């Protein structure tokens, strides 16, 4: 993409990621390269919150020509470019909200642009896909520099030869040994990116600012919350490629896994043991909450838990749902 500003004079990019993937560093590198290499003005920031690693984060970069002082410090709601660092985010976040239909969508996935478009019903002219996770596994790096490569593959107002410098700046001081593998990750990301331009997109962008449902008439005074409700969340996007596999036949029901699982994923049921006494038996894992840390695998004495690379739809098919006692039996 050339430097074609929107009606406010900006080129705006939004990075959709989960905390820990290093999207903010990518935003910073993009902005830095724009400022130093292309004499643009830029601002770069993230939607900071109390979110930890594994929670969704948005990073924003706003560019303008150097005769424009950027005074808009608000989040980017109608980006020309969106990069999605984790495909699972399509399921939990409105990642393409407000994206210009003639803009660019860049996604970390093992799918092709055509497949991706069909899967998520996408209405955007240019789709770029890259298997950043795989590239990163190969170099033992983070996938963010592969995503940076894919972003560069589709922008020509930023100079890719400056990316190596930017990577050096980012890692060189604290982790010099990471510079080289990251440069390779970047190059592979750029080369392996697949781009498809679709001609049959509908015009128009849709961004809506949705008001919170918890208004001054519906919010409890003082903000109290009546009982637990976080179980309604889906935490699967926190996994970054690995997950535990449970082999029931090897399990001796020792509960070592239950003792160390940070996310209470193990589902138990009372049964009777060989001698006819009441005893607890492990049923399986509620993958809806599993963040893929693999602590359970470490403590399992019988290899009833082993680590596996997450396969599409495996978690849904093998999830053992944790039972909750819904009020009045109504879900």
């Amino acid at each position, binding site marked *: 993409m050339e430097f074609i500003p929107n009606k406010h004079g900006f080129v705006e990019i939004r990075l959709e990621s989960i905390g820990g993937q290093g999207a903010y560093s990518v935003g910073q590198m993009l902005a830095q390269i724009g400022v130093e290499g292309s004499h643009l003005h830029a601002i770069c920031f993230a939607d900071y919150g109390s979110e930890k690693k594994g929670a969704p984060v948005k990073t924003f970069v706003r560019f303008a020509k150097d005769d424009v002082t950027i005074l808009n410090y*608000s989040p980017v709601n109608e980006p020309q470019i969106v990069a999605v660092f984790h495909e699972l985010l399509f399921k939990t976040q409105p990642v393409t909200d407000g994206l210009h239909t003639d803009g660019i969508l860049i996604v970390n996935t093992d799918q092709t642009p055509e497949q991706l478009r069909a899967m998520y019903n996408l209405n955007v002219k240019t789709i770029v896909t890259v298997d950043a996770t795989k590239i990163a596994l190969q170099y033992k790096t983070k996938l963010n520099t592969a995503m940076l490569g894919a972003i560069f593959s589709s922008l020509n107002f930023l100079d890719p030869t400056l990316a190596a410098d930017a990577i050096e700046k980012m890692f060189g001081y604290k982790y010099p040994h990471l510079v080289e593998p990251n440069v390779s990750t970047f190059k592979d990301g750029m080369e392996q990116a697949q781009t498809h331009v679709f001609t049959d997109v509908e015009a128009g962008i849709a961004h809506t600012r949705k008001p919170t*449902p918890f208004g001054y008439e519906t919010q409890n005074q003082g903000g109290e919350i009546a009982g637990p409700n976080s179980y309604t969340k889906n935490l699967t996007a926190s996994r970054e490629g690995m997950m535990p596999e449970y082999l029931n036949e090897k399990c001796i029901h020792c509960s070592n896994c239950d003792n160390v699982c940070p996310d209470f994923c193990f589902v138990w049921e009372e049964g009777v043991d060989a001698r006819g006494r009441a005893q607890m038996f492990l049923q399986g894992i509620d993958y809806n909450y599993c963040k893929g840390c693999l602590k359970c695998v470490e403590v399992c004495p019988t290899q009833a838990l082993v680590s596996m690379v997450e396969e599409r739809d495996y978690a849904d098919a093998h999830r053992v749902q944790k039972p909750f006692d819904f009020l009045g039996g109504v879900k």
Partner: protein
Amino acid sequence: MKPQIDVFKAGNQMAAQAAADINYHVMGYFPISPSTEVAQYLDMMGVNGQHDIQLIAADGEHGAAGICYGAATAGARVFNATSANGLMYMLEQLPVQSGTRYPMVLNLVNRAVSGPLNIHCDHSDLYFALNAGWVILTGANPQQVYDLNIMALKIAEHQDVRLPAIVSYDGYITSHQKHNVKVFENAQDVREFVGEMKREGYDFVIPETAPVTVGAHMKGDDFMNNRYQLEVAQTHALRVFEEVAAEYEALSGRKYELVETYQMEDAEIGLVILNSSADIAKSAIDKMRAEGKKVGLVRPNIVRPFPAEALTQALKDVKVIVMGERADSAGAKGGNLSHDLKAALHDANMTTPVITRIYGLGGKEFYASDAEAVVTLGYDFLADETVEKFGYYGVNPGDSEKGQLIQRSLEPRPVSDYVTGKITTTFNEEKNKVDVKVPPLRMLTSKPKRLVNGHGACPGCGIFSGLELFFKGIEGEIVIVNQTGCAYVVTAGYPYSSYQQHYVHNLFQSGPATLSGIAEALFEMRHRGEITFADSATFVMVSGDGGMDIGMGSAIGTALRGHKLIMLEYDNQGYMNTGAQMSYSTPLGNRTSTTNVGKVRVGKQYAHKDTAQIMAACNMPYVFTGSEAYPLDLVKKAAKAQWYANNVGPVYGKILIACPLNWKSADHDGTNVVKAATDCGFFPLYEVEQGLTTITVDPEAKKRVPVEDWVGYMGKSRHLLKPENEAILAKTKAEIERRYNQLKAKHDSEYL
């Protein structure tokens, strides 16, 4: 003009850069978002010798402000940065600093004051500071943060002022957004601008100079005059601001007036608004101007002293003033600055109507379109004078259907769910100890967790595996209190809660006190027959290790008062919630975001705090350490803890938990790291029951592992294995050894 270079940096970096350029003597600080980065950047520069500022990590903001005050009385140049509750916690120090007339510079990175807790921008903290007697400068963007920081010191130290100064800028928006900015190429130019610290003619506590007494108390007649001097100094500060701004313009080419005006020349509506929102509103002003609307904007660069004349002058021709305020003074029908402005208009015999809208609280986003809507209220008022003069912009009544999420959705559990009957605790008179029997842990999986799924902690976070394992040992209901920290933040983010038990969060340093109040109130109400609950109800205060720094006083007070409750510390060796700053529990030489590894300093400079021993010295009935690496040991201790808390008095427990994110250890290694910490002797598992110490997991019996095994798991400490850090590792080992031997001696003797 002096040479400057272009950089791409955020507000906090600019505050740090200005401080480094000035080369302050001392910064006493305590981390709080979003201001913490200022100290982090300074530490990063400091460990590589880029400035000589002494960075002192205090035990809380009150301590930080005390350090700053002390340093100022010693004649040092002093710097600090804080936000929201940090400011609140140091508030009582502020008038002391101004009333005794010691200049310093404090960056106030604006954030909403709790509660509900909120880390985002508004000006409620700033409004609390308005009455502190400090000079307060206000900036809209990172460039202004830099410039105002340099000007602030010179204004503060001016002989006609001699007051501390605050530089206020918007949290996250200005503090964290990177912009194109200019800084002086040579720090020397900044140093020359602020000049040498002038000590002659002022009273400082410096040995071998004529002794002075600082801080005498005063009676009313003298006190009145002291306050009047302060008022006079504030008045001078307006003039001094203009003088310093003129000098600074010559140095930098950037001009700062008391109030910045934008498109005000022929404006009929004037928007008055502080900080970053003023920049955002400029594009709304441009848009409205393009539509032929005569609107303009005024943004003060200083709010104390209040630039009354400059403001009334700027607004003298408008028909309506619209004031956007990012904080309210509830009940006053206008935030403090609206009232300041109205008073100024009154004194200038102006009757211009002022429309005030409270906006953007707690970081609620403020777009240019919002600015336009607010300015348009001025026209609405011109058309119809019944438009409300005061109101909130951006509130909504809510959606009664979707609001359902905060209605109860799960059946409350009966207490019996939490009683397996398989754990027994009996007091053994002879041994003066509690005998505990716990079943194989498999059997305890029938007991529900105290939290439901869905908390937002990082993958592999050890907090909840550690806490829930402890809770497995408790039979019956638990009432939980949390001080601020990761455990709270990831389990109770509105509108979500993970707690199946009663739960209260209170501020970072007040958990033990809060739980004392809850427990005593419940016992008293039960005693009066107003309520009933089982004796097995157990009160647990959960805190991080950082909470035990800032809240140590509250914890010791609670221990000494003898309430029947448990204080449970999860130690992850740092302030993780705010981005991994050092706590006093961080081990020697470890890398944190405020103890970086560089050429002149390597990691934390002193050894870890032994909180369990401090608490044991309070002579509580039961103190223990534990970890998930030894599950049976921890569950037994929990059962004992419950017995003591139900029957005798306070219990303190410290569990070591892994923070893979900030320890830079592998997610899957969580249990392994804490196990190595115990097995190498760093974190011995023991209990102090009725004053008698017992090591419950003896690392020697199972062959101690080398300290290197533990250190090697974590990126934050792995550098200690390098040859150049041999001395630090040796010191670490020696300290582990010394403390372990001391503990063994206690284990072996009933008198220690």
